[in-house]
């Protein structure tokens, strides 16, 4: 009955100290604020939120690229920070947003994809060649494209290379941080389809980060909406899209521009104040931008209200 857990995050917090300059006081930025969740094996948790909400910090914590200030993260039952780098690389891999910046411009595609295998130091040349070729074909790149440089490929093809590199060690978990944000909508659909297909075929678990709710709907089994370091709503995907509860989730949904002429550009009602992780408001952290905020929202911390498969943090929902 119980699916084994692939990613478990318990009470994780991450703060950064930002130097205040010559005379200013140092400030503390709370990027991730006491978050707990688990992703079952084969599941896909979509994490959605705006720039600065801490979603990339969360990705880096799970990848073991950052140490949490508090709390613990385990992947496949092992503490991320206790694993050595090679073991971690075999288990969990990233795909980043910008395929222009994340590929070595001077290396040929097949050498880029071979690098994780070479770094392990346990694979022979022939085996590496075979695995690279298999992986390139798997992501839809030709053998000939393997001999090219990143600059000779389109954005979508480069993102396929980044995916091939992430999967060549056959990891169990892939952390995708805005994997399609730099791409055209037509190419975005190709990459989302590829990621969905690979997950099914290889039994992968994804943490899938995006600023666009519409993008995660296709790939995610569950969606968490992140605001200033916290998950303000988390629900199974169908439930979240059918009945979004948190006003922030509703605003994110309203800001997706669907191809329906005549509707105009919606006023999502968030105002012009941008969230500042160095200055988290008291009470409900969303209240300064919330279109339905009441006076008590500025004072009381919203409790976690459980829902089937998740929950919501808002004072104003039942």
């Amino acid at each position: 009955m119980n699916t084994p857990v692939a990613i478990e995050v318990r009470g994780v917090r991450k703060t950064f100290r930002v130097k205040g300059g010559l005379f200013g006081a140092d400030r503390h930025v709370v990027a991730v604020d006491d978050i707990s969740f688990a992703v079952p094996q084969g599941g896909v948790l979509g994490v959605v939120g705006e720039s600065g909400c801490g979603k990339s910090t969360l990705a880096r914590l799970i990848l073991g690229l950052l140490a949490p200030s508090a709390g613990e993260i385990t992947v496949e039952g092992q503490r991320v920070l206790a694993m050595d780098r090679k073991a971690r690389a075999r288990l969990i891999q990233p795909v980043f947003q910008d395929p222009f910046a994340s590929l070595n411009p001077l290396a040929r595609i097949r050498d880029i994809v071979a690098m994780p295998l070479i770094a392990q130091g346990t694979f022979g040349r022939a085996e590496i060649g075979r695995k690279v070729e298999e992986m390139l074909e798997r992501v839809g790149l030709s053998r000939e494209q393997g001999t090219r440089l990143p600059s000779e490929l389109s954005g979508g093809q480069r993102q396929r290379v980044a995916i091939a590199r992430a999967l060549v060690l056959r990891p169990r978990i892939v952390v995708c941080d805005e994997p399609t944000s730099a791409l055209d909508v037509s190419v975005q659909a190709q990459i989302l389809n590829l990621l969905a297909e690979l997950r099914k075929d290889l039994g992968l678990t994804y943490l899938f980060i995006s600023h666009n709710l519409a993008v995660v709907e296709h790939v995610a089994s569950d969606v968490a909406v992140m605001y200033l370091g916290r998950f303000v709503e988390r629900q199974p995907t169908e439930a979240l899209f059918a009945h979004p509860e948190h006003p922030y989730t509703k605003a994110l949904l309203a800001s997706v521009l669907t191809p329906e002429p005549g509707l105009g550009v919606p006023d999502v009602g968030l105002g012009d104040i941008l969230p500042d992780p160095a200055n988290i408001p008291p009470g409900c952290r969303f209240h300064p931008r919330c279109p339905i905020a009441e006076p008590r929202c500025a004072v009381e911390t919203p409790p976690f209200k459980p829902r089937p498969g998740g929950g919501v943090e808002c004072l104003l929902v039942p």
Partner: protein
Amino acid sequence: MSALLEIEGLQVEFGRQSPTAAVRGASFVVESGETHCLVGESGCGKSVTALSIMNLLARGARRRADKLAFKGGDLRGLSDAAMSRLRGNEMAMIFQEPMTSLNPAYTVGSQMTEVLRRHKHVNQRAATDRAADLLARVGITAPGLRLGQFPHQLSGGLRQRVMIAMALMCEPQLLIADEPTTALDVTVQAQILRLLATLQRDLGLGLLLITHDLGIVARIATRVSVMYAGEVVESAATADLFAAPKHPYTQGLLRCVPVPGKIQRDQPLGSIPGTVPRIGPGFEGCAFRDRCDFADATCAHTVPLHNAGPTHNFLCRLPA
């Protein structure tokens, strides 16, 4: 309404040894007081079209057109000096990435006032006042403070607002916006597009908006020109295009836009396989044929222009 910008048979080529035809006979008209969207994937010639209107193409690019007129005046033979007088003054442009198009070494205020001092010979104080007014107009609070700041001190959304305000300094009649919201969060994208739509209406601007996202087009455009491999393959009033898209490329682009709540989770998303081809001069037939579900042998040579209505045209052998 009158024709603000008229383009007929625009062609742009790059390179000598193996030339690329980036724009191949594009024609469209931007009326004053309307938002005209150029839509298509990366590499289909949208940005090159915009740059060729402004005469900002890289050296070595060759531009030809049967007609290229702004307010009835021919842009083709204008000297660099005459073009400089128009650029930033009567026609202005906003680029995709505000961080790279703002100078990091100058304050917002000095960059904004430069254009006005140069074109209108206004003194610094008056220019600063106008800059502050426009920053307020584009929804920036504390404009006085922002004028003294550098671009790196602003968020992406604020930088894009600064770009818009800067483009409006000389009260242009034509504003060209090249993917102005692609680098932004969806929430900020909605705010910026609302702002552009409001300014366009209130100032009676002709707005040429370039995007790859038909979701944006549907919400903001008066007319749409769909570009593919350097050609306008379909052109229509927005409502007509979305009610009855004719070209297989337009239909494909439309299937790619994810609509929340309407996604079949066990089915693949609609996508267009492959990428925009690089085409040389003298290419024959339909450039989309290798990616098209309906292509047959005739597509290699014939691409007739069809009319689906008085103002709805498309380039495809398939009649409606």
